[in-house]
């Protein structure tokens, strides 16, 4: 006991100083908005650059597979070029010209860190606000696989953190390609290849192998990005909705490149939403 008091007098100042300063700083970054933001962005920049270095080291190991997938994607894009298509329509009425306007643009980014094993997975990419990225933008897979990857949560100047679709809070509006019945895509946190589709009424016929695609109801993803296929579906007794397991089309574990979806009409849509809220 006496020794304890002696120690307290001798080293108590230093020990209490360290403990209390740590405690104070945790209070500061938890409860004060400015400090919280600075802390988060600094932490992101540091971990981002760390992951970036690590990724530079390991980048070359996967080069073969990446080249393959890029070639695949090139082939797919070539197929979409004008000269690869046969124009099959017969012009009947010249006043009914179809006019199109660019709505989505895509920004390429490389993944610097990724996880699929946690309950709440996050992905970091090497593009940030400098490159025109902002929170709430959707992220889709690149490299021939397609599929969706997640939604941007936070950006620093050079890096961004994505909330993976393999995250408990993630909820993406999707639909069945054949009849456009929509529902929500969520993840229960077990298998990174399988997600769950919710809120599809039980009178809708769902068959194994049906394609699931994005619904385009939010401005995060364009309509019609293929997400996966129906694996199994059943109706729990007493439930009004299907329980659907979805096989993801992309391999969430093995990704190198993603595209960020930039919706050029986002501001227009937001204006409408805000006008609605004001009413």
């Amino acid at each position, binding site marked *: 006991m006496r020794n304890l008091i002696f120690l307290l007098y001798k080293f*108590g*100042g230093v020990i*209490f*100083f360290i403990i*209390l300063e740590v405690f*104070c*700083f945790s209070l500061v970054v938890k409860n*004060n908005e400015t400090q919280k933001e600075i802390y988060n962005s600094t932490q992101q920049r540091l971990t981002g650059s760390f992951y970036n270095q690590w990724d530079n080291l390991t980048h070359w190991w996967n080069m073969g597979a990446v080249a393959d997938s890029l070639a695949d994607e090139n082939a797919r894009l070539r197929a979409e070029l004008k000269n690869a298509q046969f124009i099959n329509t017969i012009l009947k009425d010249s006043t009914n010209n179809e006019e199109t306007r660019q709505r989505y643009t895509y920004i390429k980014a490389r993944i610097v860190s990724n996880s699929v094993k946690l309950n709440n997975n996050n992905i970091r990419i090497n593009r940030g606000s400098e490159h025109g990225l902002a929170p709430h933008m959707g992220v889709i897979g690149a490299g021939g696989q397609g599929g969706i990857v997640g939604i941007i949560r936070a950006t620093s100047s050079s890096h961004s953190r994505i909330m993976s679709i393999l995250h408990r809070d993630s909820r993406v509006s999707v639909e069945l390609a054949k009849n456009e019945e929509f529902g929500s895509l969520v993840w229960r946190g077990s298998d990174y290849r399988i997600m769950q589709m919710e809120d599809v009424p039980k009178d809708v016929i769902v068959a194994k192998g049906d394609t699931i695609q994005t619904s385009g109801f939010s401005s995060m993803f364009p309509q019609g990005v293929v997400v996966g296929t129906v694996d199994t579906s059943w109706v729990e007794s007493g439930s009004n909705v299907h329980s659907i397991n979805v096989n993801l089309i992309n391999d969430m574990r093995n990704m190198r490149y993603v595209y960020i979806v930039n919706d050029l009409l986002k501001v227009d849509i937001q204006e409408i939403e805000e006008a609605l809220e004001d009413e």
Partner: protein
Amino acid sequence: MNNILITNAVRFVVFVFLQVLVFKRISIGSGEWSSYVNLIVYPIFIILLPLRTPHFLMVLLGFLIGITIDSFYDSPGVHASACVFIGFIRPVILAAMAPQGGYNMSYSPTKARFGNTWFIIYASIMLFLHLFFYFSVEAFTFWLIDDIFLKTLFTFFISMIFIIIYQFSLNPLE
């Protein structure tokens, strides 16, 4: 002994009240400048703690007054971290400023005990360190270092005036 305890307890309460009821509300300058000139006088409580206060107790009391002030300023941890810091650093400063023959450990570091010059230098160092730490934590980044320095300087001069008025008018022994 009891006397000193009561004096310090009263000082704690009085300066917390003065800080949150009076000094916090006084705003000097207008517009943007008012954020540069604050009145932060309550660290006098830590500055005037008796010389024989154990080190760990000084750190703890610093935390206590800091977190009390924080609860009125709605800035959890910002004042407290600065107070803990000066509570921790005080023995170093006192050691550097020890008069010839050392301290009489039953005294408190007041103007009445150690004279005008000694007290003003000692209180200035303590208050300046407190304010610099406080504004650094408030800004939370050294990108704004000139801002931090300006705030510290302005606040330091105006607060120091109040500390000097307090010591010279009441001239407390402890």
